[in-house]
């Protein structure tokens, strides 16, 4: 099946338009119903040639439509549009439809390609989805083809009516291959340019913030049972890439107590945990590779994690406990004395790197001067604060911890008892007027991680041991394709930090669910796709000046290392011999190349039209014999029905080849006619 150039152009235009509409849908600038309507209008325009002719007959109509549209857009911006981007999108859609229903020339195809491109531009501030990459590549490939095709069609349309121009424009396979090669080259160059263009300037005009999903459990007040609704939700909430594991042994992903700490609470009112107060506000200069200090370093192994946090409506920064440093792009970072780190951009996707010093081994062996129990009674009161607690809860705690050698052992006993004696469940029922913890410990004897953590913290506090509840996420699912953890909403988790004299705050997880569960093995393709998504976030969406500097530093180091190789004593005679061999080989290659070029340059002197005529004649079984002249061949062709046409072509051939004269326009036209007759006759 052959496709004419204009049909191919139209197909390319509609593909680009579809790509643009899909992009608008992806960015949420076009809803499902809007997409259906727009798609129907676009599809209907394919068959609207008569309408196009009628509109084309009234040039003023197009101008009037555009003027009315411009007025409507201004009105929309002033009155109803949610943002400039929405108004811009509506204008784009309108212009697109007008162009589709009025397109006549190849110039309209170009305009439509530009409009589709601006749809991608409109979507750029509204999405960070990896699907944008697919739409971008489709646009690039189809757009390259369209521009190339449009250029050739426009040139052919504009060419004067000569012999060459009358030849129908063909869509050769080599042209298509060239277009694909051009697309590949454009992708490669675009990638390089994207990576090296300096990321300078400030984000002064954030066009459209992401609409975030508000996840309960990570605000400054959390009711018991807040995780209940999300514990079955598999939405990805963050990806944690383990970058380095300095001073540690084994693989970092195998660390037993790896969790992503979010927010710690110090006050409990019997039903909800809250953050009583926060201190210390610091400012981080944006884009500079300056680390924000969070916690004092105790000298253990350091785990570096790069975290891509989806917008979940929380300001908290997540990372493995204990957070030492934070590298990020936010202007302001807030740190309080609970170790909670927050940035005030809960609606945007965050990308940051944290250094952590994971807890390893028994903390009782440590004797860190900076981790001594503070003597300030207000501090102790804060972390042993309790609402009125049922006496049987206190008695239970006393019973379990009786005889413990130290507070940490008491904490371990309590944690062990909870994990052993009570059951984990996601089915949470309201305790009604009953005290939730009492209900959990003595009536239902089952609950989710929040109940376990709250029970442990309260029981520790009843024994005068400082404790606090922490909300965060479990480690999640390990993706070996990108060396990172996929953390989902269902991985939300609560545990307890207990203060151990000489070791500081130490994590304890009383929940049976706290033990790492073997995750279901997802399909490899899904993991691979998710790794692609992470690469998209890391190397495209989050690519920053810091990354550019790091990449430049890597290159510089590689070059420096190479140039710093130890010098070898040179044998100059050997160098001379090698140079001579290279020179001889080089000369041979050049000479061979010249011979080949000259061989190629010996273009046959047979004019193309005569070569075509010979091919047509050959299809009739008539080929020139050895040493036979053109005139003799024409004589032999006298018996065929195309004798006249071939005779005239032979005369023209002799005139061009041996007379050294060019064909006039009339002669060329006559030759064209003869060829057509000859080829028609030989099919």
């Amino acid at each position, binding site marked *: 099946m052959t496709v004419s150039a204009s049909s191919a152009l139209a197909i390319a235009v509609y593909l680009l338009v579809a790509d643009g509409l899909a992009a608008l849908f992806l960015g949420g600038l076009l809803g499902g119903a809007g997409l259906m309507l727009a798609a129907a209008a676009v599809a209907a325009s394919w068959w609207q040639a008569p309408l196009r002719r009628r509109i084309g007959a009234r040039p003023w109509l197009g101008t009037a439509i555009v003027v009315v549209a411009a007025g409507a857009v201004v009105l929309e911006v002033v009155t109803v549009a949610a943002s400039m981007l929405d108004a811009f999108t509506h204008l784009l859609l309108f212009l697109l439809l007008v162009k589709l229903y009025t397109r006549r020339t190849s110039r309209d195809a*170009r305009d439509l390609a530009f409009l589709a491109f601006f749809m*991608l*531009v409109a979507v*750029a*501030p509204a*999405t960070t989805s990896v699907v944008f990459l697919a739409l*971008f590549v489709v646009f*690039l490939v189809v757009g*390259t083809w369209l*521009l*190339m095709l*449009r*250029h*050739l069609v*426009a*040139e*052919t349309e*504009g*060419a*004067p009516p*000569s012999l*060459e121009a009358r030849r129908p424009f*063909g869509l050769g396979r*080599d*042209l298509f291959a*060239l277009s694909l090669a*051009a697309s590949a*080259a*454009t*992708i490669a*160059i*675009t*990638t390089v*340019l*994207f990576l090296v*263009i300096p*990321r*300078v*300037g*400030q*984000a002064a*005009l*954030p*066009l459209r913030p992401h609409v975030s999903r508000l996840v309960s459990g990570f605000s400054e007040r959390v009711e018991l049972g807040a995780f209940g609704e999300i514990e079955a939700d598999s939405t990805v909430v963050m990806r944690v890439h383990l970058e380095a594991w300095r001073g540690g042994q084994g693989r970092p992903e195998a660390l037993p107590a790896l969790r992503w700490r979010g927010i710690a609470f110090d006050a409990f009112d019997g039903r909800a945990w809250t953050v009583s107060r926060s201190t210390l506000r610091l400012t981080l200069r944006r884009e500079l590779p300056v680390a924000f200090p969070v916690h004092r370093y105790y000298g253990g192994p350091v785990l570096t994690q790069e975290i891509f946090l989806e917008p979940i409506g929380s300001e908290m920064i997540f990372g493995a406990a204990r957070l030492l440093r934070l590298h990020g792009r936010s202007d302001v970072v807030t740190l309080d004395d609970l170790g909670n780190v927050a940035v005030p951009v809960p609606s945007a996707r965050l990308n940051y790197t944290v250094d952590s010093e994971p807890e390893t081994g028994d903390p009782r062996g440590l004797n860190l001067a900076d981790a001594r129990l503070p003597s300030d009674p207000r501090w102790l009161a804060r972390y042993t604060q309790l609402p009125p607690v049922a006496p049987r809860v206190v008695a239970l705690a006393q019973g379990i911890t009786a005889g413990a050698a130290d507070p940490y052992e008491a904490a371990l006993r309590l944690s062990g008892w909870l994990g052993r004696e009570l059951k984990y469940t996601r089915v949470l029922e309201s305790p009604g007027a009953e005290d939730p913890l009492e209900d959990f410990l003595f009536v239902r004897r089952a609950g989710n991680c929040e109940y376990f953590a709250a029970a442990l913290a309260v029981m520790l506090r009843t024994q005068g041991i400082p404790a606090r509840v922490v909300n965060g996420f479990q480690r999640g699912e390990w993706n070996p394709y990108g060396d990172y953890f996929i953390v989902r909403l269902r991985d939300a988790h609560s545990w307890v930090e207990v203060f151990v004299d000489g070791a500081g705050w130490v994590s304890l997880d009383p929940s049976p669910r706290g033990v790492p569960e073997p995750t279901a093995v997802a399909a490899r393709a899904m993991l691979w796709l998710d790794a692609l998504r992470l690469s998209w976030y890391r190397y*495209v*969406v*989050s*690519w920053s000046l810091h990354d550019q500097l790091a990449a430049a530093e890597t290159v510089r180091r590689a070059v420096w290392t190479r140039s710093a190789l130890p010098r070898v004593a040179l044998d100059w005679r050997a160098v001379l011999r090698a140079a001579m061999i290279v020179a001889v080989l080089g000369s041979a290659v050049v000479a061979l190349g010249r011979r*080949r*070029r000259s061989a*190629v*340059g010996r*273009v046959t002197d047979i004019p*193309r039209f005569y070569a075509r005529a010979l091919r047509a004649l050959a299809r009739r079984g008539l080929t020139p014999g050895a040493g036979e002249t053109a005139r003799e061949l024409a004589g032999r062709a006298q018996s065929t029905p195309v004798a006249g046409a071939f005779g005239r072509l032979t005369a023209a051939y002799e005139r061009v080849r041996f007379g*050294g*004269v*060019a*064909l*006039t*326009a009339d002669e060329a036209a006559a030759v064209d006619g003869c060829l057509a007759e000859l080829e028609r006759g030989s099919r």
Partner: protein
Amino acid sequence: MSLAALLRALRPRRTIRPTRDGWWCLGAAVGLGFAAMNTGNNLLYLLASLLLGLIIVSGILSEQSMRRLRLAAVVPDEIYAGRATVVGARVRNLKRRLSTYSVALEVDGRRLYVDRLPAGDERLVTWEARFDARGRRRLPGVRVTTRFPFGLFVKAGRLVLDEEVVVFPAVWPVDGAWRRRLGAGGARPRRRRGRGHDLYNLRDYRAGDDPRLIHWRSTAKTGALVVRELEAEAALDTRIVLVGDGAGDGARLEAALSEAASLAAHLTRAEAAVELFGPGLHVPAGRGRAHLRRLLTALALYEARAVPAPPRPALRAGVAEIEIALG
């Protein structure tokens, strides 16, 4: 190396100019770059990079299309002043594998388009040219341009084929007065076949012979068709003498040279030997088309100057002499 040669060597081989689409593309790239810097949005950086990438690929492909493209002029042997003539260029693609796409030959304000030229192939492109005055003239020159692949930029090579040609004086049919004057000398029969009046030979009839030439008496005598072959006739051999030097009146000089050229062409067609004699020039007598070119070349290159006319050789018997005043 002289300064001029150095400048010539440093001059870029190609010039690049954005088309209207190209300006749009550049403007969009700059606008997107500004928006990207202003918002810090990497997807905008990506789209701006795409436009810049397209521009770079456009430059690479257009260069590839114009690389190793050779042009050779195809010029007719005879070019007459004031008369349109067809000039051509043979375009060859000397690349080993890659085709050349969408190049145009810009010549004298015209654009001749070649959509595709496969590797190793060639194409003849012709156009009409007109030279108003005789003498050495330069061809208008051809510039190869391309907007391939996206129509964003016009890339143009250097001017080529601006070589010299000799333009003969304008040649017109000789008027009645000249015909009468030339006829007064009488046609001279030549001993070879032709289309004159005198009998040259009798021979057997061959298919295609003019029936009017059948010699009926011999046919009746032999019983087979016999036809007459006639003797060729030629005009009287002539010496054209240019009198004066033409330095005074340019228009008169050109008219006289044109007249001499027209006479020479007419006499040559009538198979007469023509000799040309004038101040500073002498073309000995000769016949045929090649000789006519020599005569026309001498007339084309004649420059008016005060050169004393050499003594004329004695006129052979049966040779007419025509004087033409150069003014």
